[in-house]
């Protein structure tokens, strides 16, 4: 039921990925091993438990190999499904990744493959990236490409099989503007082709006698997406940094959004770092989205992630660094407010995380 929980699962996975990536730079002589676990819970009756194991090791002086395994256990009785007579459901998603990175200190290239599988979804992702440092390593230019092949199914339905493919390009520049300032800017363009509705959801259309009639969801089979992101890390005082970012997103479904966030990280002594973060998001709905449609239309969706909404994330994190061990723990609270989704006008939740990295 990935399509129903795309946002929830993506959020949990995003946070795991971001922090796992941040913790993945090998510092050991031979390899690093990282184990992370997180728990997501919201008041839409959804709980997601995620556990990952990542290994990264030096193959040569310039090359590293890496792999990870992620398991998501999802239990949900979201409004998306209880009204479709499905009731609470649980499922397991598994993801394996293998990759390699090479760097000579100026040039760097990476290649990764990811395979993800759950009972109604299978995905293959290939990603390549390259970067070059310029001006005495004060400027880094990077270019990444990725391609994803998804096979979409429906739980219990052997006759339902759809394909969804996507490709993306990310161009990025990172600039060390001063000893206290690091800037980065990126542009990402992505194209998705194929099935992009949910076989589980029904859109509501105003019917006779003030009723609402359920229509199977339909969505355009192509989508072009653009995003521009800017980041600024600024050192303050002697051992603190403010990390801020802003992002603007547009696509050809009419969705437009803006994200802004900031965080303050402070080193408390030699080993301990604490960080507080705040992020806000505003979105304008897709051109074909209506909470209850006035009449049957070519495209009908009940995806609240295509509606007008805003969300806020606020979190705190602590990281302790030993000589060969890094431990971090964090908690993030969030709220979504859907202005055009009467079935769930608000969703509140929390994500707790714990990570351990050992250098071998």
């Amino acid at each position, binding site marked *: 039921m990935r399509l129903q929980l795309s946002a929830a699962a993506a959020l949990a996975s995003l946070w795991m990925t971001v922090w796992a990536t941040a913790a993945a730079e090998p510092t050991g002589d031979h390899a690093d091993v990282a184990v992370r676990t997180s728990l997501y819970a919201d008041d839409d009756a959804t709980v997601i438990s995620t556990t990952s194991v990542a290994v990264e090791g030096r193959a040569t002086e310039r090359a590293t190999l890496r792999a990870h395994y992620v398991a998501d256990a999802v239990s949900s009785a979201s409004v998306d499904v209880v*009204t*479709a*007579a*499905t009731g609470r459901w649980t499922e397991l998603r598994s993801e394996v990744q293998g990759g390699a990175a090479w760097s000579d200190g100026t040039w760097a290239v990476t290649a990764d493959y990811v395979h993800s599988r759950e009972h109604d979804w299978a995905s293959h992702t290939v990603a390549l990236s390259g970067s070059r440092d310029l001006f005495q390593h004060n400027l880094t230019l990077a270019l990444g490409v990725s391609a994803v092949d998804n096979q979409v199914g*429906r*739980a*219990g*339905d*052997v*006759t*339902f099989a759809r394909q969804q493919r996507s490709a993306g390009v990310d161009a990025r520049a990172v600039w060390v503007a001063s000893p206290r300032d690091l800037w980065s800017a990126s542009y990402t363009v992505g194209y998705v082709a194929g099935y992009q509705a949910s076989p589980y959801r*029904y859109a*509501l*259309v105003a*019917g*006779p*006698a003030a*009723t609402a*009639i*359920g*229509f*199977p969801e339909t969505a*355009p089979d*192509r989508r*072009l997406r*653009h995003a521009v992101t800017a980041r600024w890390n600024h050192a303050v005082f002697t051992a603190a940094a403010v990390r801020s970012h802003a992002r603007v997103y*547009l*696509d*050809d*479904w*009419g969705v437009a959004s803006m994200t802004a966030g900031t965080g303050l990280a402070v080193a408390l002594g030699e080993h301990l770092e604490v960080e507080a973060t705040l992020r806000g998001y505003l979105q304008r709905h*897709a*051109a*074909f989205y209506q909470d209850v449609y006035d*009449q*049957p*239309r*070519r*495209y*009908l969706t009940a995806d609240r992630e295509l509606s007008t909404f805003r969300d806020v994330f606020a979190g705190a994190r602590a990281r302790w660094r030993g000589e060969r061990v890094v431990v971090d723990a964090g908690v993030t609270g969030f709220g979504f407010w859907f202005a055009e989704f009467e079935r769930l006008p608000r969703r509140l939740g929390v994500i707790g995380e714990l990570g351990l990295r050992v250098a071998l």
Partner: protein
Amino acid sequence: MRRGRAVVVGVALAGCQGGLDAPRAPVALDRPYFDCRVQPVLTKYCAALACHGDADRFFTVFARNRLRLDGDEAQRNGFLGLDERDVNFAAAAALVDPEDVDASPLVRKPLAQAAGGAFHVGATRFGGADVFADTTDPDYQILSQWLHGATEVATCQEPGSNL
């Protein structure tokens, strides 16, 4: 000139696809055939209160002695009203795929998967059997023929109705 060209490129890159909120093309479905032939099939197989005789379901069916629009218990076994028939007709039409009527959920959901049907929660709840074992079932044929343009005279009498 250069600025204008940049604006055009920007709009082209970020602009919406055309026709995203266009109305759906109407499906030609005969109302007398529905009232006289299809409604009895829906009443017989779909309208149980634990199934689609539930106002919280996306596909809701009103029927005598089942779910009623006005909620008046004393009238539960009364004849179906025009509003209820209108809703049933609209709900059934919503499950018709105008581009491939044979793939419509209205006929694929109640059909056993072994015979080409789609997953149907109802089949898992009542002994593992779906409504229609195969496409030769006479009641399946009624639904299918309606989707393929079958018509009925306006005076057709549904048994037990006030039509």
